[in-house]
């Protein structure tokens, strides 16, 4: 009969072999990249600088106000983080199963070893690694910074607790279709907005309790409806995609091309009815492939906008300006790269049509980012709030079109310059950052909307 000890031995054999193989590869890379003598001198220099700065120097005293600021806001934001953190794992579930179950572990499950136990071993290993990581970070922060150890430990404990309780939800969510994941993401974003508007910290606690209770439903169904091909493909990629090795060897570890369950729907196979549907499908395929990057950027901006609402007013306005700049730059960058990917690269480009159909997709991301902005103005409602909102939306649209038109000039290799419009875009973004001081600035929204209409036609403002 198969005993627990044998399951563990089989798992440990896989893990030892993987470690030995990676160690061998890293050694080869190190032999190419690192010179031992130089490395010793660099390590000594870094150590000397570290000791000078942190242990014998007065840099800690000089940074004391900064650390005091961090500690004060950290204690305010603690319960807010409780409600925001699940969003990170939901976003990750679009691309990551939460637990790396590779082809090797899957093969063990096909042999007479318990797949459930293998899964549990992987989870325990992950938690041990996290514990070691958080302990090291805690020790370093306590040693080096004047932030109270209780604050550091409570924050790291929060992260550790969420890393533990979100493993199963992320694992199950990963298996779901895109729209189910998007639905849960929207639900959690909305609950956070309600928490922000009502200024209640209970929602975060309720969320955590519900997530823990949901395990009663999810655990018995842990291996039901699992797309093992996709799980192992993604896990293999994350395990073996060693960044340093890729850079040094100039080779990329690519994910295998697979297609989703939606592929087999007859609706997806139908001939395109209009050329708009062709463009939309091209954008959909491209953006889904790049969803990881998009979700990370939008997720980071969202978290920033939600968190900054609890800081001084001027910080939030700067946050809005940063959000506009970063998001419109992302839109332009993705647009540019689309024409250097796959079959589109070798085809003629109707750039105006591509831009027009692209806007619908970018509006979705932009719409998400405006949710915390709307909630902020609702909480801080005054006579200027509607003008401020229209102003921020107008600046976003203007910056978006300027970035896009600049990208189109580059793609088409046309002569032309957008210096004036780029300059205006920059000025408008700065005005967003300072408009809390002079709300009358928001009346320039009227001018921006006119400028947009004049440049791009009515469609650019609706």
């Amino acid at each position, binding site marked *: 009969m198969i005993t627990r000890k044998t399951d563990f031995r089989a798992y440990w054999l896989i893990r030892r072999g993987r470690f030995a193989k990676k160690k061998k590869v890293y050694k080869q890379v190190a032999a190419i990249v690192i010179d031992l003598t130089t490395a010793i001198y660099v390590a000594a220099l870094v150590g000397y600088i570290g000791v000078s700065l942190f242990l014998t120097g007065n840099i800690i005293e000089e940074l004391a106000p900064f650390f005091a600021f961090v500690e004060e806001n950290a204690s305010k934001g603690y319960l807010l983080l409780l409600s925001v953190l699940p969003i990170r794992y939901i976003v990750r579930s679009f691309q990551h199963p939460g637990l790396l179950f590779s082809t090797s572990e899957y093969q063990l499950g096909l042999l007479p070893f318990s797949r459930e136990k293998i899964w549990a071993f992987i989870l325990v290993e992950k938690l041990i690694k996290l514990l070691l990581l958080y302990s090291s970070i805690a020790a370093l922060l306590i040693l080096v910074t004047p932030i109270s150890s209780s604050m550091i430990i409570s924050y790291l404990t929060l992260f550790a607790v969420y890393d533990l309780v979100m493993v199963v939800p992320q694992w199950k969510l990963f298996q779901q279709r895109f729209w189910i994941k998007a639905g849960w993401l929207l639900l959690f974003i909305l609950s956070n907005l309600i928490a922000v508007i009502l200024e209640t910290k209970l929602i975060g606690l309720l969320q955590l309790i519900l997530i823990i209770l949901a395990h009663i439903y999810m655990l018995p169904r842990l291996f039901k409806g699992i797309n093992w091909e996709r799980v192992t493909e993604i896990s293999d990629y994350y395990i073996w995609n060693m960044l340093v090795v890729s850079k040094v060897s100039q080779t990329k570890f690519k994910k295998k091309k697979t297609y989703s369950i939606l592929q087999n729907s007859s609706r997806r196979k139908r001939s395109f009815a209009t050329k708009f549907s062709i463009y939309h499908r091209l954008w959909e395929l491209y953006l889904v492939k790049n969803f990881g990057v998009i979700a990370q950027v939008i997720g980071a901006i969202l978290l920033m906008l939600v968190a900054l609402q609890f800081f001084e007013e001027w910080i939030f306005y700067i946050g809005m300006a940063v959000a506009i700049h970063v998001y419109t730059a992302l839109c332009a960058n993705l647009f540019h790269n689309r024409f250097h990917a796959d079959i589109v690269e*070798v085809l003629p480009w109707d750039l105006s049509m591509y831009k027009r159909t692209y806007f619908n997709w970018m509006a979705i991301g932009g719409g998400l980012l405006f949710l915390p902005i709307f909630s902020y103005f609702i909480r801080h409602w005054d006579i200027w709030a509607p003008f401020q909102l229209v102003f921020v939306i107008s600046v976003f649209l203007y910056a978006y079109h300027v970035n896009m038109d600049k990208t189109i000039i580059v793609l088409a290799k046309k002569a032309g310059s957008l210096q004036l419009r780029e300059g205006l875009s920059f000025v408008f973004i700065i005005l967003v950052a300072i408009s809390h001081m002079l709300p009358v600035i928001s009346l320039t929204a009227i001018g921006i909307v006119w400028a947009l209409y004049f440049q791009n036609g009515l469609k650019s403002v609706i």
Partner: protein
Amino acid sequence: MKILELKNVETQLGGSTLLSKISFAMEESRVVALVGHNGAGKSTLMKTILGELEKAKGEITINETSTQDDDLLTYKEQISYLPEEPLLLTELTVMQHFQLYAMSYGVEEAIMEEKIKTYTSGFELEDKLNEYPESLSKGMRQKVQTICALLPDTPLLLIDEPFMGLDVFAMDYLEELIREKARGGTAVLLTSHQLERVKDIADTYIMLQHGEVLDQGPIDDFKTIRRRKHDDH
């Protein structure tokens, strides 16, 4: 009229010069065979003409009017490209690929449907229109890519290894289609290692060696390609 003209084109990548002092011209209705040893620069030249690889020097003109540097969008509309390896998207069906090409080149729907019917019949793909590329064999994927490239009527047709992966019937049919394109005024630049077949189709040849034009002239004067000067090891 010169459909394609290259003047002193040079292409570099990662500090290495892949193509150097490439100059030649192609007239309409001509089929030109681009030949050379492995690594001579044939595919690189195709990609440079297409604009997929940035040229470091020189000028490329189509129809004596559109240059790659001044008006890339108009330039791209005048070239159709059949790559060595199919570039099909796994998420689009065969028919959807045809529609994508037709839309990109402005081919009218009625003409597109007529051509699809003719070509899919000739390549025996009539029953595969609703299939995804993943469910087709390699040869069938190549046929789909071939049909995509033949749908538009462009002044210039670039074909990189047209016969790779095709069965003998498909090769004969493709040969016939290339001749038909040329009769219709299209200038065709093709590369192939199947020299005997190329001699039957082409009017002239250009031989590349180590990224430079070694020789060019009427196809009847072409004997065989030159070996590389140095071995790899």
